[in-house]
């Protein structure tokens, strides 16, 4: 029976000719690229067959399975003699101080079993009130830096300390000219050590010419010289921002990098919220959009070379009001009403005489003289500026350094000791420092690293980390801070290495003084500090109390001032100098210090490299910040993302050319660009090799490019702006941005109002969002509920408030969180893929010219697309966002394995060992605060050089109370639950209730302005309860109904105009763009209705 049918796959098969049969006899018809595969030599010689391979696989899987059943034998090794103060498992805190030539901060170091794991601010200190910026709290990681030098080096060879000492002593015996080059020395004992060093040099027959040259990589010589001319005191004065009700800043980023920024940020924060009495009004005139600029109430963009002209403008306006003589100025490029803003500033300054302050970041002496003039007219001296309380962390006058390099070039310097600075990296190209250094017979660097300078000197005498040293600092006259060792030197002398040695001790050893610096310091204290203070009668009590508190008050012996009080220089002379100096044609570049990297001495710190820039949110790079308008004119990309690269340009400043990406930065002055210093480090370690840029040699990879060579010397001071030529390199460059969206799209995300509107009451600036329920009744959002109420009324309910008026967006909270919670660093490539792991991010939004209120006839689509575009000179706001710990958490309801659940204390708990990685929770989170572990960051080779938790040394930085998360699990902010548990336990053990402020999240504890408050919302006496009840408080995306335990406080700008916050007056704020539109429309109507009702009832 022929009932089977035959089908053919092709005509060829039907024909079944010879060719077809031959072709089909092989399984693969195409030629396999076997040759290419087998080309590898090891394959042809290998005797492993496929069967063998399968056997191996089978065996190893079985073996691994069986091995997993075996209990690992864990050793427990107690101390032989347990130190009295250590209890394993309990943290110790030591008061210390940080100073690296740039930042100063009193700190508390948390140690566990003798190893430092976290830095917080010292809350006892009145100077900073416990605020520490990101650079300071990240400095912890440098202790565990693999790149630290462990042996001294002589002519590039690692050797013994004794040989180094011998060599240096020998060269000192012959030297005629000896120089010490250092950053500003704020330490009285270090200064004494240098003085002792100098006094021991030479003999009576052959005296040695010695000079101590101070060089600040971020120079303030302009201020110092201006004060010298003005008052006869070559000092940076103490600025009291807390006493200023009107602040005018000219290019001074005093909240993040200018002078003693930690001190200023804290002081500034005291007057930024309306509940703390009169709010200060802050004007800022600058070229680049700085962190300080974003916080200003009124900001004007001015070309960097024309800052001086703007100062003249203000001088004249103030002079006119106060009846002083005007001076001759010049016109400057004013495309954003700077002139009228300056007039208003002058009015405010004069009307707040005695409580106003003008600061200027320019390094031009003439400009600073005019600023002094303004300050004198408005009565700042003695109130907001204390000239007799000098700031000791900036002393360099630049001319000394310039002269030193000249001397070195002439070959006159026989021995040079370099401490705390990296001039080979940072000196201006026109000085030619590297070439000059080569002419010095004996050069000694005390760097911890074989950095640019450390590898160029004849001797490298590696210093200890500041955690391993005794030291003292007097940052502002009248105070003494102590730095104490919190760990034994990690690299002390062992069989493996010679170890490090404190620079001061090395210096003294070179002149045969054999005391330890600890003893030397005590002697110095007994001679100089003890007699100048009144509180303690013996050195013992003074010392012990300072070790405990971290600081003491003392009045230093007055510095003898040789100059008499000179008369202020002729203002008109200064003005004409200013006008002369301001001339520049074409594009001008400002070279600024940036919040993350500062002067670049911590470039090998991955926490800081991955910290997003405060304005552009760029990580792992510096860039040319250019106004979007200029970008568009020149054809550079203005939007960035995973698939959207930036444009590369060749930037030529002062003769040296670097290649950098252009990042469109709204607010940047049109016609000027800004480039951050501190990048492009080489010889710093493995982290700086993770970048996508190349050093001058073209092969060494660097993070960003070094623009320090573009700094010029002008009129005897270092000048941080220069004319620049920018050429399109016609190349694309991937950038890693932590935030790719610019604006709020007219939604109530950062609720922002003006003081004028604020005074009209909550209903005007912060109405509760309403919805219509199923029965058509309009209710506030919290009254409409699908879910049963959470049981959070009993016991604690942990909550947080973030005052957006006080938040300056400094990122200190971000790094503090990283350090506390073992958050992994992922590297630029992963940041670019939106996989940054920060539990806490600071969102930045620019204002846009378009809003629903101003839309008019613009069509809806046009309106929304224009809303995405920031203004040319926008205002900017910052908003820290972490897990909002919602009481109705959208994440909890979608987890299939109940790995994220709610606690009785209001916490949204994340249980890593239950998580199976579906990522449903992250998708359902409206705040995008959940982070997924895409990789095994602690083991994957991709992250070896960026993640501190990979090598044995840096692993010590991990907090042992927090789990290091594995691949494939979700993680997020836990409200520092380990701190909550510890705080509760301490209270229980001591039989008392939890005190307010006792339990603090890591972010709240470092906040310089106390913008973040943390505590128990169920306790009526806590600060957080009071702030959460404030009329300014609201929830982020409140209308979604998530009922968070995080509250934001409306930002109030101190401006006179009315400002109805976004989304108000045009219907309820739209949290969810993808929501049901019909429903939303209803809500809008209802809302408007209820609003009018409320008004009529008033």
């Amino acid at each position, binding site marked *: 029976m022929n009932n089977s049918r035959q089908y053919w796959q092709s005509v060829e098969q039907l024909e079944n000719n010879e060719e077809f049969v031959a072709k089909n006899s092989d399984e693969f018809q195409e030629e396999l690229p076997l040759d290419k595969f087998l080309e590898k030599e090891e394959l042809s010689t290998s005797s492993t067959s496929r069967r063998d391979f399968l056997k191996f696989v089978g065996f190893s899987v079985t073996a691994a399975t069986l091995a997993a059943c075996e209990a690992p*034998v*864990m050793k427990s090794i107690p101390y032989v003699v347990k130190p009295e103060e250590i209890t394993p498992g*309990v943290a110790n805190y030591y008061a210390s101080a940080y100073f690296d030539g740039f930042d100063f901060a009193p700190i508390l170091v948390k140690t566990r079993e003798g190893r430092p794991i976290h830095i917080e601010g010292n809350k006892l200190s009145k100077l900073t009130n416990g605020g520490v910026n990101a650079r300071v709290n990240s400095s912890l990681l440098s202790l565990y830096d693999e790149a630290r030098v462990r042996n001294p080096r002589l002519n590039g060879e690692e050797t013994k300390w004794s040989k180094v000492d011998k060599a240096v002593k020998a060269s000192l015996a012959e030297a005629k000219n000896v120089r010490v080059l250092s950053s500003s020395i704020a330490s009285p004992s270090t200064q004494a050590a240098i003085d002792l060093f100098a006094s021991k040099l030479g003999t009576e027959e052959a005296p040695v010419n010695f000079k101590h040259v101070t060089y600040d990589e971020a120079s303030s010589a302009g201020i110092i010289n201006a004060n010298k001319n003005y008052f006869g005191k070559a000092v940076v004065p103490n600025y009291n921002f807390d006493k200023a009700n009107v602040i005018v800043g000219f290019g001074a980023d005093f909240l993040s990098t200018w002078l003693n920024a930690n001190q200023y940020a804290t002081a500034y924060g005291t007057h930024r919220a309306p509940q703390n009495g009169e709010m200060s009004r802050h004007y800022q005139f600058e070229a680049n959009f700085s962190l300080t600029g974003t916080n200003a109430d009124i900001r004007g963009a001015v070309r960097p070379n024309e800052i001086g002209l703007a100062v003249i403008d203000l001088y004249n306006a103030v002079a006119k009001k106060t009846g002083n003589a005007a001076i001759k100025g010049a016109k400057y490029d004013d495309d954003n009403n700077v002139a009228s803003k300056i007039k208003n500033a002058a009015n405010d300054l004069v009307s707040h005489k005695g409580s106003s302050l003008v600061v200027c970041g320019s390094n031009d002496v003439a400009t600073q003289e005019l600023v002094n003039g303004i300050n004198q007219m408005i009565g700042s001296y003695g109130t907001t500026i204390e000239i007799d309380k000098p700031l000791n962390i900036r002393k360099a006058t630049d001319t000394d350094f310039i002269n030193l390099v000249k001397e070195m070039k002439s070959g006159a310097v026989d021995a040079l000791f370099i401490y705390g600075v990296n001039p080979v990296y940072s000196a201006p190209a026109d000085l030619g420092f590297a070439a000059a250094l080569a002419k010095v017979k004996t050069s000694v660097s005390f760097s911890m690293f074989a950095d640019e300078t450390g590898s160029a000197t004849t001797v490298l005498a590696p210093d200890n980390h500041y955690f391993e040293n005794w030291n003292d600092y007097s940052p502002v006259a009248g105070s003494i801070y102590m730095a104490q060792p919190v760990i034994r030197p990690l690299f002390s002398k062992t069989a493996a290495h010679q170890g490090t040695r404190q620079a001061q001790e090395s210096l003294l050893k070179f002149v045969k003084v054999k005391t330890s610096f600890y003893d030397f310091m005590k002697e110095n204290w007994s001679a100089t500090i003890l007699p100048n203070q009144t509180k303690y009668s013996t050195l013992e009590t003074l010392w012990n109390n300072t070790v405990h508190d971290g600081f003491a008050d003392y009045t230093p012996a007055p510095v003898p001032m040789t100059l008499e009080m000179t008369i202020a220089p002729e203002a008109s002379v200064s003005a004409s100098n200013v006008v002369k100096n301001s001339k520049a044609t074409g594009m001008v570049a400002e070279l600024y210090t940036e919040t993350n990297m500062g002067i670049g001495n911590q470039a090998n710190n991955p926490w800081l490299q991955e910290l997003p820039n405060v304005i552009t949110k760029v990580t792992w790079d510096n860039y040319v910040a250019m106004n979007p308008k200029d970008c568009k004119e020149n054809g550079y990309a203005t939007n960035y993302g995973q698939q959207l690269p930036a444009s590369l340009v060749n930037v030529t400043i002062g003769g040296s050319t670097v290649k950098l990406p252009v990042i469109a930065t709204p607010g940047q002055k049109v016609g000027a660009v800004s480039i951050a210093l501190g990048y492009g480090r080489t010889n710093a370690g493995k982290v700086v090799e993770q970048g996508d840029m190349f050093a001058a040699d073209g092969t060494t990879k660097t993070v960003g490019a070094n623009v320090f060579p573009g700094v010029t010397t002008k009129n005897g001071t270092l000048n941080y702006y220069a004319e620049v030529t920018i050429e399109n390199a016609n190349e694309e460059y991937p950038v890693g941005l932590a935030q790719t969206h610019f604006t709020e799209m007219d939604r109530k995300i950062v609720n922002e109002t003006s003081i004028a509107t604020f005074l009209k009451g909550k209903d005007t600036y912060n109405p509760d969002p309403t919805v219509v329920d199923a029965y058509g009744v309009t209710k506030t959002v919290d009254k409409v509920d699908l879910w049963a109420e959470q049981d959070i009324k009993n016991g604690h309910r942990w909550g947080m408030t973030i005052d957006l008026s006080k938040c300056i967006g400094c990122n200190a909270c971000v790094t503090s969180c990283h350090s506390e919670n073992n958050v992994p660093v992922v590297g630029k490539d992963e940041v670019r893929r939106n996989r940054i792991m920060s539990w806490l991010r600071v969102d930045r939004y620019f204002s846009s010219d378009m809003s629903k209120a101003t839309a008019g006839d613009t069509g809806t689509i046009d309106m929304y697309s224009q809303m995405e575009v920031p203004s040319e000179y926008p205002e900017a706001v910052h908003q820290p966002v972490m897990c909002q710990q919602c009481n109705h958490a959208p994440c909890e309801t979608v987890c299939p394995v109940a790995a994220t659940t709610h606690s009785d204390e209001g916490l949204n708990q994340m249980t*890593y060992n239950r998580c199976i990685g579906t990522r449903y929770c992250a998708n359902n989170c409206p705040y995008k605060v959940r982070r997924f572990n895409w990789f095994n960051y602690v083991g994957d080779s991709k992250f070896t050089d960026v993640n501190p938790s990979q090598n044995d040394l840096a692993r010590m930085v991990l907090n042992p109370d927090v789990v290091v998360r594995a691949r494939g699990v979700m993680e997020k902010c836990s409200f520092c639950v380990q701190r909550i*548990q510890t705080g509760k336990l301490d209270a229980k053990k001591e039989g008392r*209730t939890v005190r307010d402020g006792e339990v603090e999240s890591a972010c709240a504890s470092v906040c310089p302005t106390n913008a973040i408050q943390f505590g128990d919302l169920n306790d009526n006496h806590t600060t957080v309860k009071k702030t959460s009840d404030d009329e300014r408080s609201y929830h982020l995306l409140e209308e979604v109904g998530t009922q968070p335990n995080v509250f934001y406080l409306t930002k109030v700008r101190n401006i006179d105009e009315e400002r109805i916050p976004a989304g108000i007056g045009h219907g309820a704020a739209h949290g969810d763009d993808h929501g049901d539109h019909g429903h939303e429309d209803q809500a809008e109507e209802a809302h408007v209705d209820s609003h009018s009702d409320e008004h009529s009832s008033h």
Partner: protein
Amino acid sequence: MSLKISINNIKVHLSVLSLFLVLALSGYSQDGKNLFKANCAACHKIDKKLIGPALAGVEDRWESKENLIAWIANSGQYLKDNPGDSYAQDLFKEYNQLQMTAMPLSTAEIESILGYIAAPPETPKVVITDAAPAAAPAEDYTNVWLFAFTVIFIVVISVILSVKASLKKILLELKGEEGLAAIGEINDMDLSFYQQSVLWANRNTKWMIVISIFAFIGILYILWSSIWTIGVYKGYAPEQPIKFSHKIHAGDDGIDCVYCHSGAEKSKTGGIPSVNVCMNCHKGIESGKLYGTEEIAKIYDAAGWDSENQKYIPRNQDPIEWVKIHNLPDHVYFNHSQHVVVGQVDCKECHGDVATFEYPMHQENDLTMGWCIECHRTKEVKMNGNPYYDKLHAQLVEKYKSEGLESFTVNQMGGIECAKCHY
């Protein structure tokens, strides 16, 4: 630094002093041995230098017994009264000018001590035995009965089988193979046991199916129950570098747990005592009940203690690598002080009656999450007297009003929430 040292010195003095006070008050007997133990033994040995000199022959070294008695009663006073006694002055200097605490002893008492020193009874020889922990009394006899029944069952079966085999043999001899076939049997007597079994299995397929099903279920059951023991190390009792017996220290000597494991009241870990804690007692106790000097010598090695010269040699110090017994699973936070201080949980409740445990120490409980949770579900929190709980207690009473509860379990106050232990 020096301040710290002086504080330390004061502390040492105070603790020595208090030790004496305690000892002085504890025993008051005319018996020289008891008096010696109560008053002198903390610092003196008869044949060996300790904190103070060895006392054997002390009467010969002193010029007069009266002086010696005065010296013992109050050495400070004696030194003041007799500045000319060079022997006493030198002795004082030799021992770092550490004064012997004045003893509230009568002359008669001192004399009886001296009498004991002059003729101490022979020290009993230390018997070195292998520590064989006594088998725990079997209170549950189920297993014994099961075993007995199984043995009886096997005996009965084998008897029946052998009877059957004999009968078969007889039948074969009487009637040949046909005879066997007639009753459904075959001649398999020359075959091996294996062949016999196969033959039997082939002929009894129904039985085989039943047996297979039982075997399959049995294997599954064994696998299932063994899976649950992965990672559970109840009874884990590894060899330790020193054969330390908790029974002797915590049981016989009655040393409080937290004397050595002081972390239990302060920290998350109970902690293994550092060697200097061992040395507090073992400076004087050189020989143990079970192993003589062998094991205690290991402490001296670790501490760098030169028992000949009674001093530490820091460079010889080498920590003891104990094998950790109680290993919590990863990703869990446990705090001893929470349970010991706040919860007032007795050490025994988790660690068992350690005072009866011989070497090697073992893990008494599962330490699994289920084991933790079970306790958290049932254990009532001791809220009374701790002001931390005052407000919470009132709130909980209100919350559980309908059930009329006055005391609450850990669970009822949120004690089994994830983030209480996992973060």
